[in-house]
């Protein structure tokens, strides 16, 4: 029961973010970038349902377009991490030996290397942007995928049908495609969902430090950063994007938990 609740609640929250992002392509209440000093810091009204920021821009419209940035952030970061990390983990798990050792040690190094520094350096070379922040977060997330994929692969490799396939002279590639990948895809999906949540938080943190999304592109992290000095005067401006971030992260985490309950082979064995 509780498992379905997680899955459903997570799916609903994530669906909401996706829906808002999609709608924002076609319609927003106002132009999210249009500055109007005469409207600045106005509270919620019928026309501006969430009020305006210190540039007189509509907060609701910014929030909607910001959802796009949030999804973009997650997709790019998780994409990089999954596409690089999963194959590495599978290779490490299937080959074993020195290659396994090498991959996992490099993994440890990447894990030890501060993602923040990578973000700063990429930002310095290419100009701070959503993309540089995401590449940094993505690279920093590769080890998580490699670990998960390796652990899953090891488990699959010890199953009887793989042993049978190997005895039958099937190639490594065939085994990887036929048995390993389908069997660990659930784990990778779970990891994707969790990493998505972490990426959204990381973008907010990088934006707070000035290494995230470049203006004027609306981003929840930057909305939060731009309004932090107004926390005492106009708390609404910080709390709204803060709540949006929290709900999105909550959504992806719940989705991850829900998926884990469905896919985690350990639990299946026990049940």
């Amino acid at each position, binding site marked *: 029961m509780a498992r379905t609740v997680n899955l459903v609640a997570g799916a609903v929250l994530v669906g909401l973010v996706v829906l808002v992002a999609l709608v924002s392509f076609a319609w927003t209440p106002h132009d999210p970038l249009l500055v109007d000093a005469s409207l600045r810091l106005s509270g919620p009204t019928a026309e501006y349902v969430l009020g305006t920021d210190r540039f007189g821009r509509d907060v609701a419209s910014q929030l909607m377009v910001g959802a796009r940035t949030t999804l973009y952030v997650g997709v790019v970061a998780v994409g990089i991490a999954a596409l690089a990390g999963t194959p590495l983990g599978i290779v490490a798990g299937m080959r074993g030996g020195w290659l396994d050792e090498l991959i996992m040690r490099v993994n440890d190094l990447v894990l030890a290397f501060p993602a923040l520094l990578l973000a700063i350096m990429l930002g310095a070379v290419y100009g701070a942007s959503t993309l540089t922040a995401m590449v940094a977060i993505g690279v920093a997330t590769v080890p998580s995928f490699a670990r998960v994929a390796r652990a899953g692969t090891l488990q699959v490799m010890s199953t009887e049908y793989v042993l049978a396939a190997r005895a039958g002279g099937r190639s490594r590639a065939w085994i990887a495609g036929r048995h390993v990948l389908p069997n660990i895809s659930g784990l990778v999906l779970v990891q994707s969902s969790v990493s998505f949540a972490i990426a959204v938080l990381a973008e907010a943190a990088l934006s707070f430090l000035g290494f995230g999304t470049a203006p004027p592109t609306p981003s929840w992290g930057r909305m939060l950063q731009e309004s932090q000095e107004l926390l*005492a005067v106009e708390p609404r401006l910080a709390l709204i994007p803060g709540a949006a971030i929290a709900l999105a992260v909550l959504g992806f985490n719940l989705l991850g938990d829900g998926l884990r309950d469905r896919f985690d082979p350990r639990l299946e064995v026990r049940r």
Partner: protein
Amino acid sequence: MTLAIVRRTAILLAGVLAASIVVFAFLAVLPGDSAQVALGVNATPELVERTRQEFGLDRPLVAQYLDWMGGVLHGDFGVSYVTREPIGPQLLDRLGVTLWLVGAGMLVALVIAVPLGTVAAVRHRKPSGALVSGLAQLGVAVPAFLAGMILVQVFAVRLGWLPSGGWTPPAHDPVEWLRGLILPAASLGLVQGAVLTRYVRTAVLDVQREDYLRTARAKGLRPYPALLRHGLRNAAVPVVTVLGLQLATLLVGAVVVERVFVLPGLGSMLVDAVAARDLLTVQGIVLVLVVGVLLVNFVVDVLYTLLDPRLRRS
């Protein structure tokens, strides 16, 4: 055993060497240079060149790298271009602040996570357990700096109970030091604690399904005593692993919290040094961080062996 340690140490050293080369190469391609930053606007090219020579930036990269590495091996991290002071003592000073922050944050996280996670697991079919899990889920989702900003508004600005930021060395004034540490540790620890709560819950849930615990329960032990006597040690294995991993990723969190609370830690030093293109300092910081994280991994591995009876035997 000895062989394993030698091997691990060799891997550690190779890792550090690789990291130092990567950092050096990355920084070499960064646009902007420290001579220019030191001289600021209106600096003429001749002056920039002269300052570059003074800093030794005009020498071949390999020579610069070997020089630096040679110094580091003797415990000399060089003299910063920007502060004109030896980097080693500064690093140590900043590291102290960050260690306190991360340590206290971890403590807060553990104090929150161990009881809550255990409760959530034992009562996982009851509303109270679900409530704890739900709260933990929400806690994970809040950005640490937002939590920090709100804590400052409430406890420092509105109530005036605690300082809003700044750092007092413990040797100078232990009371002030503790007061200053509470809010930063809380904002770092609350979010980390929420993360950890979920892992503790999972670990305890797993342990509860184990036969020895069922046996203990069958012998008439109440759930919590049974867990205390037989379960927690086993549940600690995955939790310690996660703790180690978290420690590695805590740095970004620490940077942000250092920023909110104006703590002179390693994170803010890194950001400042990169901004000033103080390459020697950046290299020093990253080297210390990488070594630190690799060491933590090493310690976690050892703890793992100690905690898990099955692994100990092998």
